Every structure is written in C-alpha cells, then in structure tokens.
C-alpha cells in the first residue's frame, strides 16, 4: 500500500478500570473504502468507535485520522468527520429540523445544509414533527442526516441499521454506496451481522474479545472462506471406508455412521476419492462440496474455542 491510510490505529488498547476491553488493535482504513467493522456484541466495536472520535482516552497506542494524531488535533480533525454512535442523540422536545439545526449551529455549517440533509434521508415531510414522535427507523435516519451535515470526508457509523425494517436497511445500503461512489466518502460501518456488511463493504475488519482477528478486503475474506470448503461423503459405513483407504481418508471426520467430512483440496483429489471408494467396493450414496457461508467464516473467526472440523 503506497497511500497513507485515511484512518489508522496503532497498537490501540483500552481498559475500563482494570478490565481490558481492547488489545493491540491496528485498524487500517484506506481512502474511498467502505470498511465493515464486524464483531459480536461486546467484542469492542463501540469502544473502538468512541476511541476513533476521541471520546475515550486510549490506555496505549494512538489514533491517526488523515495522517494526523487525533490526540493532538482533535477539534481540527473532527471538522472532517461525521459520526453516528449507537442510538442517535436526539432532543425529544425539539422537532426533526431543530435537531439538525442544533448541530448545524454547533459546526458552523451553511444554513442551507439543514434542508439538504433532511431531503437526503427522506425526512423533509416530517421535519416539523417533534423527534419524540419519530419511529426507530426515522430516528436512525435523522441521526444519519446530522452526521452528514458538514459533508464529512470520513463517516463513522455504529450499527446504523439498528431498528430499521428490511426496506430501511436496503435504503441505508444504497445511500452508503452512493456516498462512496459519487461523493468519494470513506465510511466505517460497524455491525454484528455479516450479511449486512458483505453486501456493501469493500474492506472488512473482524474483532473478537477486543482483538482484531481479521483485516483485509472483502475478497480476501471470501478466499479465506474457500480455503475452508469441505467435501461431504455419504456411504454405508464411515469407519470401514476409513480403514480401507487410510491414505486418502486419514484426516476425515465421521460426523454420522455413514457420513464423512474431509477438507476440500482440488477437483482431482475429489475424483480420486470417489474412484478409490468405488474401487474398494463401498457404496457411494452422495458426494458434495460444502462451501461454508461467509457467516460460517465469521463465526469461525469469532469463536473463542477451536472448531470441531479443521
């Protein structure tokens, strides 16, 4: 990578009191990407997001935005960042428009932006209503409008599809894609759902128990997944087959009396297994390739204990 990352953390660690939350996290977000930040609940996603905004002080390590240290230039750097952290911070006694307006005044953004961002998230018609009357999805969209106010180069969105219905989720996805492709934004979006991230992200980081367990492009994650493909073999007796073909089936695992799982290697290897089995006089009821879904890969990455099948 020759370009300076737009967002970078170096050995970032954090603890609450004595309880460690994050350990040696090195995020790398390149300009113009949608970085999906994945992890189960409680893995440290929100804590990381807060550290990226300078809301929390790291126990060790540093955050760099646009090549500058956040600890030294927080106010200046935040000028180019829009964020939506967990549930949006809305003043229920104010209308939707007044909520946007409060942040607009705070950031010193042009007055015309209020109407623009409200239109962008489709809330123009409801802008006069008090925020307390908003549905969960509307609140989320209003939060996004506020994050977009200053036309930021970097957007940090923490679980932005929380509480959205399927339509809302699709709309959000399209909006993120549009922001990247047409406006050149860099977006970090956290989620605990791989299905949501794989449809929109260009890069993925997976966090588990406060450590980054995977980071790379979406393609790299998909390659990791093909490496974990397995062959499922249905026969009469799994044990008999293993005894007859020790070379080919030594690593195979019997998951049922007539079922064997083995690591997929290549097409030739698959054909060889089938031929050998038939030659040995064993019945072959079924032979299929099982591609673990991205979700399985994600679960595999975020599982604390080693998996049953390697």
């Amino acid at each position, binding site marked *: *990578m020759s*370009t*300076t990352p*737009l967002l970078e953390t170096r050995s970032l660690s954090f603890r609450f009191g004595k309880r460690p939350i994050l350990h040696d996290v090195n995020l790398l977000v*390149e*300009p*113009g*990407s949608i970085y999906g930040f994945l992890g189960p609940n409680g893995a440290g996603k929100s804590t990381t997001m*807060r550290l990226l*905004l*300078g*809301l*929390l*002080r790291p126990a060790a390590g540093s955050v760099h935005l*646009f*090549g*500058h240290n956040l600890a030294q*230039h*927080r*106010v*200046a*750097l*935040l*000028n*180019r*960042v829009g*964020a939506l*952290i*967990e*549930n*949006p*911070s*809305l*003043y*229920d*006694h*104010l209308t939707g428009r*007044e909520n946007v*307006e*409060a*942040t607009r*005044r*705070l*950031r*010193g953004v042009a007055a015309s932006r209020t109407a623009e961002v409200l239109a962008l998230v489709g809330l123009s018609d409801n802008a006069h209503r008090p925020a307390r009357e908003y549905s969960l999805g509307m609140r989320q969209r209003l939060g996004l409008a*506020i994050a977009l106010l200053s036309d930021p*180069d970097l957007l940090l969105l923490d679980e932005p599809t929380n509480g959205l219905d399927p339509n809302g989720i699709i709309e959000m996805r399209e909006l993120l894609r549009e922001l990247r492709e047409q406006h*050149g934004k*860099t977006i970090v979006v956290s989620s605990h759902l791989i299905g949501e991230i794989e449809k929109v992200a*260009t890069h993925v980081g997976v966090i588990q128990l406060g450590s980054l367990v995977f980071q790379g*492009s979406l393609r790299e994650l998909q390659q990791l997944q093909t490496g974990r493909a397995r062959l499922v073999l249905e026969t009469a007796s799994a044990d008999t087959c293993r005894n007859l073909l020790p070379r080919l089936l030594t690593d195979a695992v019997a998951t049922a009396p007539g079922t064997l799982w083995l690591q997929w290697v290549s097409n030739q290897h698959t054909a060889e297994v089938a031929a050998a089995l038939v030659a040995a006089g064993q019945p072959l009821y079924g032979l299929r390739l099982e591609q673990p879904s991205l979700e399985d890969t994600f679960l595999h990455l975020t599982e604390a204990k080693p998996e049953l099948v390697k």
Partner: protein
Amino acid sequence: MESTLTSDTFLTLPAAPAPFTQLRRTLAADVLKLRRTAALRLTLVSGALPVLLTFCIFFFKGYIILKAGGTPWPRFISTAWQTAGTLLLPLFVVLLTSLVVHIETKATAWKHLYAQPVGRGAVFGSKLLLILVLNAVALLLFAGLVLGAGVLLGVLKPKLGFQTYSIPLPAVAWMLLRTYVATLGLLAVQYIVSLYWRSFVVPVGVGMGAVVSVIALMQWEHANKIPYAAPFFTAVSMKMGKGSLEVAHALAKHEWYSLGWFAGVLVVGYLLLYRRNVTN
C-alpha cells in the same frame, strides 16, 4: 487499491475554529435546545411564587403590618426578598442547573457533543454562560414582579400608601447585584455535580440536601462560608431604617466567599472533567 483522494488535499490538517468561534457556536446551539424546556419555563415563572405570596399577605393583612404609617416599600420589598431568598432561590438554582445539564443527558447527547469540532472548554463554558444568564433573567423578573406588585397594591389598596411613596430603586439594584453574587457559589457547585454525575436525581438530591442542612446549620459560626447559605444571609442583611431600606453598597463577607467558591469550584471541576472518558 485505487483511490481518488491520494492527493495532498486529504493530508492537510483542517483549521480548527478559533476558541471564541467554538464558544459562540456552542452557545447558539445551546440557546436553540432551550426551546420548550422545563428549564426555560422555570426561569420565566419561578419569580412569581414569592411575589404572589407577599402580595396576598399585604393585600389581606397589609393594614395590620403597615399600621405604623410611612412608606410601605421597605417592608414589602424585604418580606418578598426574604420569602424568595431563604429557601426558594437556592432551590431554583439547584433545579435550573440540573435541568439545563439534563437536556444533554436525556438525549444521550454527550457522546454526540464531544464528537463535534468544538473543544471541551467551549461545551463547558457555553452551558455555564447559559445558566448564568437564565439565573440573572429570573432574578430581574423577580425584582420587576415585586415592584409591579407594589404598584398594583397602590391601585387596589390606596390606603397602604404604595402610590404616595417613591420606590427605593438604588436599594433594589444593590440587592439584585448582591443576591446574584450570593447564588454564584452554589451555582458552580451544582453545575460541576450535574456534569460529573450526569443524572437528574443526583444533583437535585445533593442540592436539596445541602439547602435543608444549611437551615439547620444557620447558627454555626462558619455558616457564612457555606455557598448554599449565602442567598439567605443576603436576604436578611436588609435593614429597615427610619422610613427607608438600608442596603450596604458593597459585597458582604459571605458574598466574597460565594465568589471564591464560584472561581475555585469551576477551576477544580473543569480540570476534573477535562480528561474524563465519555461513556454515555
């Protein structure tokens, strides 16, 4: 990966707004957030209660209280001021600071506020300024209502003589200034407590507890050093002279203590809050 943003543009450090600009922007936002809040309503109506009480007392029993004759103004003003200053004013300041700070807490907006390009000093200073102004507005409204009620009594009960004697304006002005100074110490304490605990219950509980305790401690020789007692001491410092209201044209000792508390608590509190993590 390919990128359209590799040029110098994204690496140049954006300029941070000047400290005064940050404060001005934060204040503009804070004023907007005040719309339709309990804090604003409290400011506008709180002065009415002690005035209404005093008005009723003088309306129904004024002929007994004022039977000595002469100007009714000193007696009327000091009654109203003592009704307000002993208990209601400290409680008002407690409620006001808690309510203003609670606007952010209720919206879980601290995380949002601190993620904006304004420094923590601007956020701290803006709300403090807002509370100071609201406190001044409430006091001015109270004084205006007191004088208005006196004028009204002059119309409704001419026998009491409110219309024949002039209003002791310099005394009222000094009382206003000194009472304001007397509230500053407890205002600062309440402000820091509200920011530190970020709940509504804790600062109101602390404040009410302190106000009630002070009533019990009034005879203590160091009572004048307690910020919660200062409005009381100012209210009772008014003396009724020969047909006039005597108010010292200088700050009393407990008012200097109040100013000391104000400065000291704000400095210590700010240092305490400055480096804190934002978790809600």
